[in-house]
């Protein structure tokens, strides 16, 4: 297949011969599996000797754009990093600004945020599973995971009104309360998903074909994972018991009961199992949050500071005085539009589906942020491409790559 020039053209791949037996392979950016990133791999024979992740194909300079927008308008902007994990992605921004405003959201809002965060986490893990299935040529898992993800996307829609970009957390609270029958839907979804996870194990994780491709592949030892600063399920699959929900509990996580699953192996299979166990924990947290919300009276879900500036129609709808609110066009609470945040610096972190996401927010007292710095879990995991892949065969690249639960829009920002 090699021509005289040494160049081989494969669909989605470009190969260049550097010297005898050393080739440079360009995988992506438009590759059916890779999706918006390019990996430049040097292979000797078929063993990878050097891997250079070349990212930035869906980069949108969010940090710069955020400096020109009102505080409130940045929430929908940052949401675009990972629309399927929208609550987790915007929550630390909201928390960081709340710290500057010195506003503590009401208890009900904290539970509602926790609930949506967990719905998002399950949806995000299932999405990752689906893509992982595609990478390994296991299209059944892809269909199953994407089909089951739809349940959680619809739960989020019932709660927030939008499937993906819900912009649910706002400064001092959440956008709206949950519907009356939401608990019923959540319990139905969790019962279904628990059953499905067993089926996933049968068809995918315990499948001999899949196991032989994942077991012992892409092993990241504990010390190495910490040194690279990996985040989220990837670091926990290497035996590190670190989770922001445990280290610095936010929202209602210090009041719900859950475990942090940890795997010692650190290989691709452990990373896959890690996500299954996390989905189980998330389902349990969702049920606990819904139980709490049903048992407690429907008090306010936005901090009084913002709620008192709300138009009367808000309060009438909330008090049940308006039979059908759909005919009104409800505007945003006016204080958000003219919000000025006191000068200061703050830092907030949240455990999102793909790992810890941190925001550094600096304000100079104006109506736009002075500087916002976002680091997402996916971005911290990119470094693993460079250091965990060399030494494996090129055929193992999709297995390792998929096991990281990569998501280019999130790391590119």
């Amino acid at each position, binding site marked *: 297949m090699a021509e005289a020039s040494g160049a081989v053209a494969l669909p989605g791949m470009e190969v260049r011969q550097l010297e005898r037996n050393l080739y440079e392979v360009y995988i992506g950016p438009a590759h059916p599996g890779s999706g918006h990133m390019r990996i430049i791999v040097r292979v000797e024979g078929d063993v990878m000797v050097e891997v250079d992740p070349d990212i*930035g194909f869906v980069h949108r300079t969010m*940090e710069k754009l955020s400096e020109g927008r009102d505080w409130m308008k940045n929430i929908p902007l940052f949401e675009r990093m990972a629309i399927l994990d929208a609550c987790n992605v915007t929550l630390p921004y909201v928390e960081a600004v709340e710290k500057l405003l010195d506003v503590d959201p009401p208890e009900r809002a904290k539970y509602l945020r926790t609930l949506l965060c967990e719905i998002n986490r399950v949806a995000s893990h299932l999405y990752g599973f689906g893509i992982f299935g595609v990478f390994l040529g296991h299209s059944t898992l892809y269909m199953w995971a994407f089909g089951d993800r739809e349940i959680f996307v619809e739960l989020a829609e019932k709660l927030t009104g939008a499937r993906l970009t819900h912009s649910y957390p706002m400064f001092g609270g959440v956008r709206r309360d949950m519907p009356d029958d939401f608990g019923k839907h959540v319990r139905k979804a969790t019962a279904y998903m628990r059953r499905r996870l067993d089926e996933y194990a049968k068809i995918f994780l315990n499948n001999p074909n899949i196991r032989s491709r994942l077991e012992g592949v892409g092993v990241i030892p504990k010390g190495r994972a910490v040194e690279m600063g990996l985040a989220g399920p990837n670091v926990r699959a290497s035996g590190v018991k670190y989770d922001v929900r445990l*280290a610095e509990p936010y929202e209602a996580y210090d009041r719900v009961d859950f475990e942090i699953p940890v795997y010692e192996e650190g290989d691709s299979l452990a990373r896959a199992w890690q996500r299954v166990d996390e989905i189980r924990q998330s389902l349990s947290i969702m049920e606990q949050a819904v139980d709490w919300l049903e048992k407690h009276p429907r008090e306010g879900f936005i901090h009084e500071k913002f709620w008192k500036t709300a138009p009367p129609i808000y309060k009438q709808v909330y008090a049940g005085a308006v039979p059908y609110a759909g005919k009104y066009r409800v505007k945003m609470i006016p204080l958000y539009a003219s919000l000025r945040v006191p000068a200061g610096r*703050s*830092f907030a972190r949240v455990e999102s589906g793909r790992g810890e996401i941190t925001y*550094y927010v600096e304000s100079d007292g104006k109506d736009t942020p*002075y*500087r916002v710095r976002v680091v997402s879990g996916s971005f*911290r995991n990119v470094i693993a491409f460079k250091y965990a892949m060399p030494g494996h065969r090129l055929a193992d690249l999709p297995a390792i790559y998929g096991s990281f639960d990569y998501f280019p829009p999130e790391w*590119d920002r």
Partner: protein
Amino acid sequence: MSTSAQGIVDRLKSALGEGISVEQLKGYLELQVDPGRLVDAARRLKEAGFDHVKSVTAVDYPAKKQIKVIYHVSSMLDEELARYVVGLATYVDRDDPVVPSLAGVWLSAEFQEREVYEYFGVRFDGHPDLRPLLLTPDLAAQKILRKDFKVVEEDDYLKLTFEEYTSTKRWV
């Protein structure tokens, strides 16, 4: 954060020496050092248990003619330290920003330093592989996250005459 944070402040002071000032901010603690002392401070922090970098941030202050580089570090293995985030900050000259690279101390800083380099033009001395990460080289040359780079919003409509349009089209 007041009483529990005292323990971490003491721990930081014992690691870095009494002369260091620890500022308690919202959600993290900030330490300020000179660029010359940065590597030493980072080594001491790492020995004290801060094992990874969460974020490398730069902030541009055109009025002061300075750029501030902050490394937010924390720990994964030490449960006590994992509760805190420490920002190791240093100010550099805006016209010739050079900071010693901490990628040799914390490997996790490697990619993020590349990002600060392309956005602010801050050069990291001793970085193993300093080249733009997300941006193309010509966009990186404009140091777009500095305050003097203004974002110009595009018009909703194409501002092109027919002649311009036909002269730029790539097909026959």
